[in-house]
């Protein structure tokens, strides 16, 4: 399907939850009625002004939206090409874009009379956001987290517990994010009557990919008017760029620009140690092939027999062997480009952001920034790049310290080489 044969990229998914051949509802029968219920409730909420009024109010007063669109002047000068703007979603309450979506799903859960919220989390950002909103509304919250991640993301585990959530370390499978998602689905299938599954990314069975995208689209919508306010009426970005694990911050930034053909759209996957046949990466699009997992058809890291492989990335938030189905479709239609960035390149970009802008970024958007670093110097000064700074780096300082050879346990501190 060539890009020029499609009238609009913003009408999907179809009734079956498909974006082209991707997406769908590949779940067990026990869950199917719940998913249909959720879809019906979401369709109602979508056109209900009172739903969006509640969202807007909380986005403004609880999350702190709109997040600034910030002209990164020193970064622009350093790279010596395109003009770089950062969408500052790391300034949201809880430190990442995740809460944009969680608010929407929890308000929906309340409308559906659900009292028990479950979620999966990798790095812990979605878990913290879910625990936060559940605390705010007095809802019971259970977060499934791979046992391996529980160990390496101890601060976020403690945050969730402070917020009153129960964190369940997942030891099934290999104890990673995908296994956490399996266990969340197992919980849901067992507690169907009172439980709402709050998925953290644009994946899962329909309607999740579309619903999460819609909630995250506030990012791109704000960019549209903010850029026009700063650069003149009607000025669109020339390039929008974001990091991708499951792909929710990227879908949120991209979606409002899909039908603006002049806007170049770039998604950056986690290349880990390099995208080759050893699968030491999480680049589902650049290094995987289509398959069915967690309720949807999408690009997956898998072996020749259809068994799912573990990804690898320095960033726990990108450590997932799949990607949202809409990204798979945008990839196949050619509307968006997808590239990969290695751990090493992301670490260098992490430091660049700290040094030039005084912003300690999360490792996830550091991947996007590393690609900005590659393309900006080749572009003219009137080319505007908007990059989503989707999370802040507090959670990552331990990982980064380790990679930079800085001993955090040494109270005297030690100069970095």
């Amino acid at each position, binding site marked *: 399907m060539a890009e020029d044969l499609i009238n609009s990229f913003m009408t999907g998914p179809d009734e079956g939850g498909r974006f082209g051949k991707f997406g769908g509802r590949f779940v067990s029968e026990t*869950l199917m009625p719940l998913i249909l219920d959720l879809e019906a409730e979401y369709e109602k909420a979508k056109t209900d002004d009172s739903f969006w009024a509640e969202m807007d109010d909380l986005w403004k007063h609880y999350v702190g939206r709109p997040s600034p669109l910030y002209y990164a002047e020193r970064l622009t000068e350093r790279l010596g090409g395109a003009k770089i703007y950062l969408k500052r979603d790391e300034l949201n309450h809880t430190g990442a874009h995740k809460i944009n979506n969680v608010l929407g799903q929890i308000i929906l859960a309340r409308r559906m009379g659900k009292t028990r919220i479950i979620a999966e989390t990798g790095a812990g950002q979605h878990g913290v956001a879910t625990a936060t909103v559940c605390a705010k509304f007095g809802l019971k919250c259970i977060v499934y987290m791979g046992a391996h991640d529980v160990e390496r993301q101890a601060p976020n585990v403690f945050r969730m517990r402070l917020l009153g959530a129960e964190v369940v370390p997942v030891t099934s499978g290999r104890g990673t994010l995908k296994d956490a998602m399996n266990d969340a689905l197992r919980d849901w299938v067992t507690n169907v009557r009172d439980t709402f599954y709050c998925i953290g990314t644009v994946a899962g069975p329909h309607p999740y990919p579309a619903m999460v995208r819609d909630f995250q689209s506030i990012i791109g919508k704000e960019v549209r008017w903010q850029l026009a306010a700063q650069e003149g009426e009607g000025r669109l970005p020339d390039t929008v760029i974001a990091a991708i694990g499951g792909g929710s911050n990227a879908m949120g930034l991209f979606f409002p620009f899909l039908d603006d053909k002049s806007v170049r759209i770039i998604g950056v996957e986690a290349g880990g140690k390099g995208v080759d046949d050893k699968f030491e990466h999480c680049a589902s699009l650049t290094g995987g092939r289509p398959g069915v997992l967690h309720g949807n058809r999408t690009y997956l890291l898998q072996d020749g027999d259809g068994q799912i492989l573990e990804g690898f990335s320095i960033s726990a938030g990108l450590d997932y062997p799949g990607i949202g189905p809409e990204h798979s479709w945008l990839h196949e239609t050619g509307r968006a480009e997808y590239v990969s960035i290695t751990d090493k390149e992301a670490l260098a970009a992490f430091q660049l952001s700290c040094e030039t802008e005084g912003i300690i970024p999360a490792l996830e958007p550091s991947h996007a920034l590393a690609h900005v670093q590659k393309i900006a110097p080749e572009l003219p000064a009137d080319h505007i790049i908007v990059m989503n700074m989707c999370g802040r780096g507090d959670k990552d300082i331990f990982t980064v310290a380790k990679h930079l050879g800085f001993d955090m346990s040494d109270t005297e501190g030690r100069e970095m080489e």
Partner: protein
Amino acid sequence: MTRIDDTFSRLKDNGKKAFVSYVMAGDPDYDTALEVVKGLPAAGVDIIELGLPFTDPMADGPTIQLAGQRALEAGMTLQKTLDMAAEFRKGDDTTPIVLMGYYNPIYSRGVEQFLADAKAAGIDGLIVVDLPPEEDDELCIPAQAAGLNFIRLATPTTDDKRLPKVLQNTSGFVYYVSITGITGAANAEAGDVGPEVARIKAATDLPVIVGFGIKTPERSEAIARVADGAVVGSAIVEKIGAGESPADVLAFVKSLADGAHRA
């Protein structure tokens, strides 16, 4: 008529309920699993469900998850699973084999190729957990066209409004999942299951078999009494996981089968 249809008509003539057993192909290794499977008919098993291992079995409890992991670690693949069925068929041309698993390994091979291979291996039906009726075009309809039964799960959440949709393209039998939950979890209660089976039977002529949460000969009998048969999986797989010999596993299977056949 498939082997599944034949089996049910024979059971009906004899006034007996069906006993269905589940084992994971290749658990703990190919040879041991094959030995168990070959012994199932003599232990009284009417229909064999053969598990196709998958890394991410979202509807299964720990017992079957671990069985899948053991099988995969021992090198099990979709091809070897089909080989195992074909090997069994050499000595038994009447006991139906239903392949049970998840869609991705099948999708990965390609649906057409898979159906041809499965048919050639002597597979009679498919239960694919993550393919609800909404996705019938994927595998269900092509499978029926290829002469394989596509057995659907009905669950406590399948309400009357939805039931016709679930039954529409089902063939062979209907698998009623007795609990909302994963395999090997809570106990199925005959008192709860009976009315549900009656509700489904009012809407279809197909036999209704009940599974999930059946672990003992007594429960196998009690559940079979209120349905057309009972399925046991996790309780058998647990014995295999504990390293019991094929002979001991088959003795346990026989006690379960006898329970169902007493009903």
